[in-house]
């Protein structure tokens, strides 16, 4: 963005503005664009979700306002804006007021490191991935504030649940990402995407593989297990069914949002959908290559980049459009999967949620980190790192060996843990039965 602004102001108009002003203008434009896009596409995500879930339930969904219900979200928006804003007298006015902002702000922050296409990232941060998850954990504070300030028991219980859930599912999410970070050796999201060129096998693992932009992590056993664990954790993080315990409307009204109305409620809603979008986006970036896809890499190689200043700007546009298309397709695909899961599963109980997170996902991700270490060792290390026996193998053989070993390890771990988990569940049921039996005999 900055080079474009620089081009326009300093080269076309010849005003010779200082670089800090160029930087400021560039960042402001990007920020304004993102702040426009985020709520707008959130509106249409709600429509998307409603239509999709309706079809899964053999209904049609909202299709009255505009063609195919296109303007339904706008109508909803108008409604929510015109609603009265009610603050309970018993509420802590200021905290009640600030809480929605604290919830929304981090989700907007997270857009800062999200790459939309090749070379289209607001800030190419070295620690993008870490930033993303660090910032996402801030919204827990906002939820806590909302729950506490409402001075409502449902709200407080909802906030407690939300925070407990977010804190416990951050661990498997981060642990599963740790495996990927081990493999790529970088925390930069852009680097993560660049790693995923290739065809089934990443070009970074085996250099001779043609770069079709399909060397996604999902195709390796490490990445696959990490994907499953991460997506489940993302569902919990985004408070999606079956992990929508914090706002379980049949139990605690609307959780921490109970005492909010009007646009403050709308802000929570916005934060939730934007967070869901971001989680889908990050899933598609980490495991499905983000904008990587057939053709994008080649187009971008012809474009004007710092590496290749002699490119054609047409290729910039083409690569950008194709890259954004791939990225959004994958992202909305994952949002569809979220809706699909919502259509399929019932809500978990809080103890089932904790059981699943702590007893199944975390051990599984721990094993996965081990697999990732093996993968890195078998594909990258040599005699210098103390792994002399792989030295003579060709890259493809090394990749195959890594694939086989990690596949066996992950599959074995999955089956073993699933059995242990099932046994513990059975055991628990048996013990519950025993408790009842004892109570029966006492009476």
């Amino acid at each position, binding site marked *: 963005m900055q080079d474009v602004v620089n081009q326009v102001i300093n080269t076309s108009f010849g005003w010779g503005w200082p670089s*800090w002003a160029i930087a400021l203008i560039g960042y402001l434009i990007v920020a304004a664009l993102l702040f426009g896009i985020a709520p707008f596409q959130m509106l249409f995500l709600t429509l998307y979700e409603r239509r999709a879930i309706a079809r899964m339930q053999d209904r049609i969904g909202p299709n009255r306002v505009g063609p195919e219900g296109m303007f339904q979200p706008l109508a909803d928006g108008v409604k929510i804006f015109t609603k009265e804003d009610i603050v309970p007298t018993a509420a802590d006015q200021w*905290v009640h007021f600030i809480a929605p902002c604290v919830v929304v702000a981090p989700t907007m922050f997270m857009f800062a490191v999200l790459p939309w296409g090749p070379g289209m990232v607001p800030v190419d941060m070295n620690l993008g991935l870490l930033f993303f998850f660090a910032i996402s*954990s*801030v919204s827990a504070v906002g939820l806590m504030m909302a729950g506490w300030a409402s001075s409502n028991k449902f709200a407080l219980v909802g906030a407690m649940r939300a925070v407990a859930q977010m804190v416990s599912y951050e661990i498997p999410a981060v642990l599963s990402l740790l495996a990927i970070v081990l493999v790529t050796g970088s925390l930069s999201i852009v680097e993560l995407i660049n790693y995923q060129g290739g065809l089934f096998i990443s070009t970074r693992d085996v250099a001779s593989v043609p770069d079709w932009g399909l060397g996604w992590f999902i195709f390796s056993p490490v990445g696959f297990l990490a994907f499953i664990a991460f997506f489940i954790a993302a569902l919990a993080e985004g408070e999606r069914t079956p992990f929508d315990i914090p706002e379980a409307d049949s139990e605690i009204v609307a959780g921490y949002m109970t005492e909010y109305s009007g646009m403050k409620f709308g802000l929570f809603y916005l934060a939730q959908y934007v967070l869901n979008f971001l989680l889908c986006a990050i899933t598609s970036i980490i495991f499905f290559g983000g904008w990587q896809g057939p053709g994008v890499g080649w187009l971008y190689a012809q474009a004007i980049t710092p590496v290749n200043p002699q490119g054609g700007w047409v290729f910039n546009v083409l690569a950008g459009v194709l890259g954004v298309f791939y990225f959004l397709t994958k992202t909305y695909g994952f949002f569809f999967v979220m809706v699909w899961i919502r259509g399929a599963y019932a809500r978990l109980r809080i103890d089932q949620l904790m059981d699943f997170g702590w007893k199944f996902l975390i051990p599984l991700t*721990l094993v996965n980190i081990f697999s990732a270490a093996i993968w890195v060792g078998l594909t990258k290390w040599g005699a210098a790192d103390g792994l002399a026996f792989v030295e003579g193998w060709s890259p493809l053989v090394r990749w195959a060996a890594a694939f086989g070993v990690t596949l066996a390890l992950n599959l074995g771990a999955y089956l073993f843990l699933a059995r242990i988990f099932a046994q513990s569940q059975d055991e628990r049921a048996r*013990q*519950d039965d025993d408790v009842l039996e004892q109570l029966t005999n006492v009476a």
Partner: protein
Amino acid sequence: MALILLRRPYGWEPMDLLIQIIFGLLAALIIGAAMMVVTVRNVIHAALWLIASFFAVAALYLTLEAEFIAIVQVLVYVGAISILILFAIMLTRSSEGERLLTKHWWAAALISLGLFGAVLLPTLIGHTWNIPLPTGPVDAPETLSGVEDIGRGFVNEFVIHFEVAGILLTVALIGAIVIAFEERSRRRRVLTLSEEHILRQRQQATAERVSAVADAAD
């Protein structure tokens, strides 16, 4: 780790001014929030001010280009520690407290000021003021990668500390999982509705059996 460098990416004076203004604002926020933490009467509010202070400190790290530290500050302090504090406060006691001041509060103030001075004074005395700022165009800024430097430090110089901390954390994690696997019957818990229903059915069945046996005895 050259964290303290006020790097000037574009070699332009207003950038320095901007960063100094931001620094001033952040410092004011940190100090103000910290003051609020100790003066505000509502404990929850105090915790929230503390979070604000943590966040401002993270921003301060960012101005120092210590991205990793800043992000870890957010992740650990804002995302985890503060939540822990909030949980602890909410689960333990009522949030409004009396302001408790001893008669000898001035003694406490004096002692803490003295200790602070004891730390600060040598620094102030030994400091050389007015270091001339580097002039002229800045050469290509050295690549700063906080993570890599920290990582190298961990596996070279501080490998023992790192290993010990790593083992401790893993043990804590596994311990948490083991505790989660603890037998349920040891815990007291409330029966769910369905369990109560089953219990009632069983009790009825038992009662009927007993009465049937009694009838047979007659």
